[in-house]
């Protein structure tokens, strides 16, 4: 049984002039342990899809099954990392991470323990009492990542996590994400990352889902069979990037 199973998921929003279809007839499965990247141009509904998977928004029609069961409300086995970081400016790094745990009803002692573990894992030691405004974008996203990992989810959902940071910071964060994902002690093994950067998808993912716009739909599903660490300047890397690019171009 796949971990996640989307069956003919559609999502539309009602406007005065009529319904706007954002996702149309999306079906795919995700296996446990898979790193899936979802690539597509802006407006293809990929972020909406992530929210449907997480249960923040219900689909208009169709079903999202998790371990074979239909999701009703927010799936607490998922945690999400946002492009905007979504940190509370009046809380310290530690406070921001604890907040995510407290919201899930985790005891203060356990909060404290997990905070320590995940601050250490993502390299935030030394920044516990810093406020978000004292941090660079890259450090803010580490807080976003620690907050998501600290709830010890089965599935990590990432919505354009490295799109708000500069190129050098993004390189660093991608490497660290791979290290974390591959580390034996990490509870989260399944990752779904939405991105518009094709090279990012080819560098990180086991599989790439390509989406096209108006309405958002899946136009390609490619396995990435390149061994890690991946050589970004090698021919197979470029060939696969070109293939994804042409799939997006054809349908847009």
């Amino acid at each position: 049984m796949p971990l996640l199973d989307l069956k003919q998921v559609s999502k539309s929003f009602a406007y005065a002039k009529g319904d706007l279809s954002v996702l149309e007839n999306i079906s795919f499965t995700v296996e446990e342990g898979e790193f899936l990247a979802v690539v597509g141009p802006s407006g293809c509904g990929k972020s909406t899809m992530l929210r449907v998977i997480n249960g923040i928004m219900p689909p208009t029609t169709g079903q999202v099954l998790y371990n074979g069961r239909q999701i009703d409300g927010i799936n607490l086995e998922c945690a999400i990392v946002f492009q905007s970081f979504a940190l509370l400016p009046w809380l310290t790094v530690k406070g921001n991470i604890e907040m995510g745990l407290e919201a899930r009803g985790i005891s203060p002692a356990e909060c404290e323990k997990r905070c320590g573990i995940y601050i250490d894992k993502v390299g935030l030691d030394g920044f516990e009492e810093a406020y978000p405004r004292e941090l660079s974008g890259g450090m803010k996203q580490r807080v976003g990542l620690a907050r998501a990992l600290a709830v010890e989810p089965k599935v990590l959902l990432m919505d354009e996590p490295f799109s708000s940071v500069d190129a050098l910071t993004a390189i660093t964060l991608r490497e660290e994400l791979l290290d974390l994902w591959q580390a034996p002690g990490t509870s989260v093994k399944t990752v779904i990352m939405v991105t518009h950067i094709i090279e990012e998808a080819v560098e990180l993912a086991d599989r790439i889902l390509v989406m096209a716009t108006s309405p958002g739909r899946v136009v390609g599903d490619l396995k990435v069979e390149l061994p890690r660490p991946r050589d970004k300047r090698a021919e197979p890397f470029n060939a696969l990037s070109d293939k994804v690019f042409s799939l997006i171009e054809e349908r847009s």
Partner: protein
Amino acid sequence: MTAGINPIPDCNLMWVFGLLETLEDRGGREDGYKIARDLAFKFSDLLKVMKAAEILGLVSTPSGDVVLEPLGKQFLAVDINQRKLMLREQLRKHGLFNYFVRLLRGQESRSLSKEVVLEHLAILLPAERPERTFATLVNWGRFAELFGYNKDEDRFYLDHE
């Protein structure tokens, strides 16, 4: 007393790590201008990153190129917490960081207010903007767990002592 105290570029350490990764991907040596162009990174910013990486002993910069040094390679091979340890060792050897380590050790509270740190910076590095250098001291210091800064208590202090 100020001999050997040089300014530090206002550069985020994650840029330094990104530069090292990029160099590793490119066989350990690359033209700085080419890296900036390929990453669409401002060349003036990349120069700061190169300078910072050089101060930390991770790269050398002969004639516009950036070369990964053995310490830089070692740095790439270890995990994030070992990287912090390596940075701490490197920063302790740097004049400016060393100055504040000694200054803080001499305080009974092992800490200083930001205002006092800014005064020292104004004397040590008159050509630099103290606020900016303070921000970099705190950022690098926190990352390496050498210094901490608590904004609420306005306390700049030695971590790990």
